[in-house]
């Protein structure tokens, strides 16, 4: 069933059960995202896609909020813009994101987002945590300095590959992405080395071994393609 809602003052129609994010994208309005990825379930964690609902003024994540008839949504207000920039700055302050020496320089969603929100510098103190780089896997590496805890690798490995190699341990600022039961990635025998997590990672945190600065290109739409093909049984 089709529903009508207002997005940034524009009437748009959307399918029932659709998220605000999908409805907006169908209508050609892009809402910035980071933890969202086509093909895996949404968690509403990065808060980048927050939109404002008219009336209550409440901010809700566009990725996990379903549209409803007559809903009035604003995805671009000065306040939202300021919040998004602050959120990106917080992410940059959290780990050691040194773009200049990153395999994903130029192919990074976080870097793109920083440009999108107009981040010319970070106002908060950098936390400079001491992070590890795990290169125990024969093909891939994990650089925790660049991990933003979006859990896209966790969801990809769990939902698409079905191996559930990745997870998150600890809490708060101590949260960490782990492989297996917090073992070196190379020792996790459930890993099929399919490389989907490498593709899913928005930054340079998960990379192919041997890639050097700015070499790590990622093909994220492939994951959604795989999932759709499987669901629609396109190969059968």
């Amino acid at each position, binding site marked *: 069933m089709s529903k009508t809602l207002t997005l940034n003052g524009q009437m748009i129609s959307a399918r029932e059960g659709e998220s605000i994010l999908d409805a907006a994208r169908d209508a050609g309005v892009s809402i910035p995202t980071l933890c969202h990825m086509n093909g895996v379930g949404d968690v509403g964690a990065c808060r980048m896609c927050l939109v404002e609902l008219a009336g209550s003024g409440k901010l809700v994540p566009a990725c996990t909020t379903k549209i409803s008839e007559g809903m009035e949504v604003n995805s671009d207000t000065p306040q939202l813009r300021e919040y998004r920039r602050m959120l990106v700055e917080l*992410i940059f302050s959290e780990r050691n994101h040194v773009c200049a020496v990153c395999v994903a320089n130029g192919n990074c969603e976080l870097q793109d987002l920083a440009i999108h929100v107009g981040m010319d510098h970070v106002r*908060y103190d950098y936390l400079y945590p001491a992070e590890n780089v795990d290169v125990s896997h024969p093909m891939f590496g994990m650089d925790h300095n660049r991990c933003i805890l979006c859990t896209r690798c966790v969801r990809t490995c769990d939902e698409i590959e079905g191996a559930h190699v990745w*997870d998150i341990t600890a*809490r708060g600022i101590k949260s960490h992405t782990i492989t297996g039961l917090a073992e070196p990635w190379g020792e996790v025998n459930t890993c099929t080395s399919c490389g989907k997590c490498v593709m899913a990672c928005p930054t340079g945190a998960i990379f192919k071994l041997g890639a050097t600065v700015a070499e790590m290109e990622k093909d994220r739409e492939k994951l959604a393609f795989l999932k759709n093909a499987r669901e629609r049984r396109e190969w059968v």
Partner: protein
Amino acid sequence: MQDEVATLLEKTASTERMAQSRYSQRIQVCMGTACMALNSEQVKTALEHAVIENGIQKQCQVQRVGCPGLCSLGPMLRVIDKTITAEANEPRETLYQQITPEVAPAIVTSLTPAAQPTSALDAHRCEVADTFFKRQVKVVLEHCSHIDPERIEDYIAHGGYRAIQSVLTEWTPQRVIDSITKAGLRGRGGAGYPTGLKWATVAKANSSNGKKYVICNGDEGDPGAYMDRSVMEGDPHRVIEGMMIAAYAIGASQGYVYVRAESPLAAKRLRVAIRQAQRAGLLGNNIAGSAFHFDIELRLGAGAFVCGEETALIASIEGGRGQPRPRPPYPAESGLWGCPTLINNVETFANIAPIIDKGWEWYAGIGTAKSKGTKVFALTGQVKTSGLIEVPMGITLREIVFDIAGGIPNNRQFKAVQTGGPSGGCIPEKFLDMPVDYESLAKVGSIMGSGGMIVMDDSTNMIEVARFFMEFCMDESCGKCVPCRVGTVQLHRLLSKFVDKTATPADLIKLEGLCKLVKHTSLCGLGQAAPNPVISTLNYFREEYEQCLKPSP
């Protein structure tokens, strides 16, 4: 069949009453966590030995009870002596405080027929009891400190399980929900959501597999708060009965009590109580011969504050990582294993049986227009008498701080009272005469919360208070969403700059901006409320922040 339960309750009650009436003297020893930490178990053993040594075991019973509330004066005990009547033919009741195993025999000797007047106990007579209890109204805590929490018979003898019995035999689920709605009960877990409305929503919700669940939220993780723990320790059957009534009203057949493993005594008492209720046929299949099936399982949490948040708690029961998820869908539509789930706080459930028993009219008569009934608070900080109190909604903060708690010690001045723990705010002196209810507290930038109440005197540094709560939120953040995970750390750093007096005016602007961000963009209540202590201290004690500024370079 249905009468069977009625008969069982009656028989149990009368046997118990008879057994108890054989004793003319009773010594009730608090066996709550606080008093037990102060050796009340040894006190009880010493009392039992002394009773035998004095040969009065036929007339004097030593009994384990829950918390009477004066936790700072423990171990507490109460002596009820029917051989001496006080006013209105009531037996004489004496409260004793700070009893050690060494003093215990003197109490027993004072009860023997040959007792001589002695001054040995003078120092232990609880002087503050009169003022401490005078303004209190005990509904939730009515049995705490009066019954043995590990004996279902004692609960039944005090009218327990009468409510569920009449509900099962005479009430429709709708009537139950209507009563709770009309009573005006609001959730005691913090947000104050109308309980009747929540029950009605879950009752109406469709479940794809026909299952619905009731969850009792006993996670209670605010620093310094122990209201729910005391209820679970002191009157566990009350909670179970509340859950049963709820399950009947919404059509659930399985319940869970979620308690943190850091409250082992509460967990133990609940486990014992659940087993007793099962044995008595009050939990299980075809309860009271009706078509109503309901059972309760205890789930232990690992002690994460965020697991008190309902969606995180549900994830934890399901065996997942205790992390909140965006709502909607609310648990009422899609909760435990995707089924409609009712989740209420311990104290909320403890209010149910009396509402059914005494009628919603009675309940609605206590409190204010929009906040009905009573609220239990864990009163701590710089007051003369701290402890667990239950007060009618609408009482003023001044009455609590100065009448019940006896005011500020050491000749100092009152400065502020903090309610709602890490999610609440600091209320300054000018609001002391404000009534304690959900709306008034929210209006001054705090919240009712689950019942933590910390009184601060004029020696308190408000920035350090704000930083303490921020540190708590920072440590307890689950780490899922960016504003809370990183924002609380940056807020904590900024507050530390103020404490160290190295902050710049630019830092003050950053602090306010971050408070706004974290409040408005966090995923769950933990992050959304984390800036509240900062915001409220900035509001009422801004000059303290400004005094800590160093000029911009």
